[in-house]
């Protein structure tokens, strides 16, 4: 009786795998990355994001391609004057060329964003890898520390830290803001790496490699990193967008860039004060900041969706 019941006739007891034979793609099998790329190529959102990001990067690298005006050359006589010649967006309260300022604003945004994100990436990578790899006490301490960091809302901590780091009254705040954002935004990356390492560690082939005496470093670089690096990079792309937004926010609140450093956040803050009389000095930097952040988020989002079909 039991024999009859346990072995199921139709399910091919000879060990032939009963593969699902429903709808199958006819194309030849591809790698996950290949599939993801094929999927990405078809997405409009992805291409919009790529173009936007490219424009912003070019703007940051070579602002003179877009404007020949000096964003620092302001004349009160020009206050709120409309668009003329090169000054496409007119002039603000202090008589500065809004277009030139907005273009040059990209440079600081991107600089701070990229550097802070790299810093966060490095810290997150190191902390996450070590927590996941060593486990035990290291993991416990690190996890508690991350808990503590997450106990204070990000922006609050950012305000306090940035304010503290830029105590020199003459500094332009770029270093302080970069450091602040880098030091505060690594936690998600660390968590992602940590769980990636832990799940990789439990996989048979990694356990096997370890038993065969593969040294730890080799294990990490050969087996664990390649499997989780895609999601990590996606995370960093998203983080880049968030850090750019955070820079603007800190600057907006007066604890970010300062002393004449151009920032979309400061322009928005100034524009807000006089928005009743003249909305454009507020609107333009807001559009540029919004579009830039959107571009990076869209990029990260599209790539993540391509790699994770579940979310579709």
């Amino acid at each position, binding site marked *: 009786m039991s024999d009859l019941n346990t072995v199921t006739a139709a399910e091919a007891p000879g060990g032939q795998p009963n593969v699902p034979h429903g709808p199958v793609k006819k194309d030849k099998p591809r790698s996950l990355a290949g599939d993801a790329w094929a999927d990405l190529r078809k997405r409009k959102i992805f291409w919009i994001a790529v173009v936007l990001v490219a424009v912003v990067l070019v703007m940051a690298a070579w602002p003179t391609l877009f404007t020949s005006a000096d964003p620092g050359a302001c004349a009160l006589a020009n206050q709120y004057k409309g668009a003329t010649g090169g000054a496409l967006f007119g002039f603000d309260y202090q008589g500065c060329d809004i277009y030139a300022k907005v273009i040059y604003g990209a440079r600081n945004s991107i600089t701070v964003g990229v550097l802070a994100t790299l810093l966060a990436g490095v810290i997150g990578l190191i902390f996450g890898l070590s927590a996941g790899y060593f486990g035990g006490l290291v993991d416990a301490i690190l996890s508690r520390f991350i808990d503590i960091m997450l106990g204070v809302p990000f922006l609050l901590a950012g305000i306090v830290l940035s304010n503290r780091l830029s105590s020199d009254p003459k500094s332009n705040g770029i270093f302080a803001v970069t450091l602040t954002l880098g030091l505060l935004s690594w936690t998600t990356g660390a968590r992602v790496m940590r769980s990636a390492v832990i799940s990789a560690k439990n996989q048979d082939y990694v356990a096997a490699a370890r038993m065969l005496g593969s040294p730890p470093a080799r294990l990490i670089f050969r087996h664990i990193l390649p499997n989780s690096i895609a999601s990590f990079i996606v995370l960093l792309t998203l983080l880049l967008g968030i850090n750019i937004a955070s820079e603007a926010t800190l600057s907006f609140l007066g604890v970010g860039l300062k002393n004449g450093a151009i920032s979309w956040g400061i322009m928005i803050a100034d524009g807000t004060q006089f928005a009743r009389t003249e909305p454009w000095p507020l609107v333009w930097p807001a559009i540029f900041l919004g579009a830039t952040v959107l571009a990076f988020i869209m990029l990260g989002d599209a790539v993540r969706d391509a790699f994770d079909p579940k*979310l579709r």
Partner: protein
Amino acid sequence: MFRYIVRRLLQMVLTFFGATFLLYALVFANQKDPIQALVGERPVTESQRIALTQRYHLDEGFFMQYWYYMKGLLTGDFGTSLTGRKIVDMMADAWPVTLRLALIAIVIAATFSVTVGVYSALKRGGLFDNVSLVITLVLLAMPIVVIAPLFQLIFGIQLGWFPPTATRDATVWQLLLPAIVLACIVIAPEMRVTRTSVVENLRADYVRTARAKGLTRMRVIWVHVLRNSLIPVVTLIGVDLGGLMAGAIVTEHVFNIPGVGFNLARAIRTEDGPLVVGFVSILVILFLFINLLVDLLYAALDPRIRYE
């Protein structure tokens, strides 16, 4: 369950002291003239110096200073702001305003994101779904420094639908536009999670069972699908609270709302150390408790979850 709560409370205590210590250190450690920092720009007399040194235990080590400060904090003595006002009084004015703001924002966000998320999921792939996905993406990306001033400009100043700024008493009507701005921060993730989770649950086996039981489509969706789908959304609302608090700093600044964020932003700009540490400490406590509550709520909603 009891053991779980005790363990969580212990962890919270650790997190609380860790976070406030870091904060305290950031604000007060290594200041060139701590006494000057305590009074701001005003000149200090010698007798004031002595009094302040005693009050803040400046002659003792930094750890002791933190310890005394915490002792005061935990017994309700938050000290005095640089403006000379008692911090407790300032909190009594500011907290109700911010809580009201946050509550309105949460209600708006939850109503909107759940309705739209569920409808998107039911009509997935359709026009409504695609449009709302694009809108959430834009909302997700827009920093609050963009949304707050632009909404104020468009809906407050240009169209005049809402009051563009609040007055001292911050009525619900005045708080509506800022609350919508705040809601925008959390709508996108909440809506996405609702949609994904409804889509997933619609495919679940138990939904097929519910249909096999001859229940109406409405009952299948509202009783069987929704109850399961909203579990992750509820947890998200807890996580979002941190974002709301941060957003409140910018929003209250823009709309001139005399709440916690407004006070904090000003305190930081005027380097009002005691005020910053006091407000943020309370925020941290609030934040921790809400997260605990959300986890307990999660267990209450999902019978499969048993905390040990």
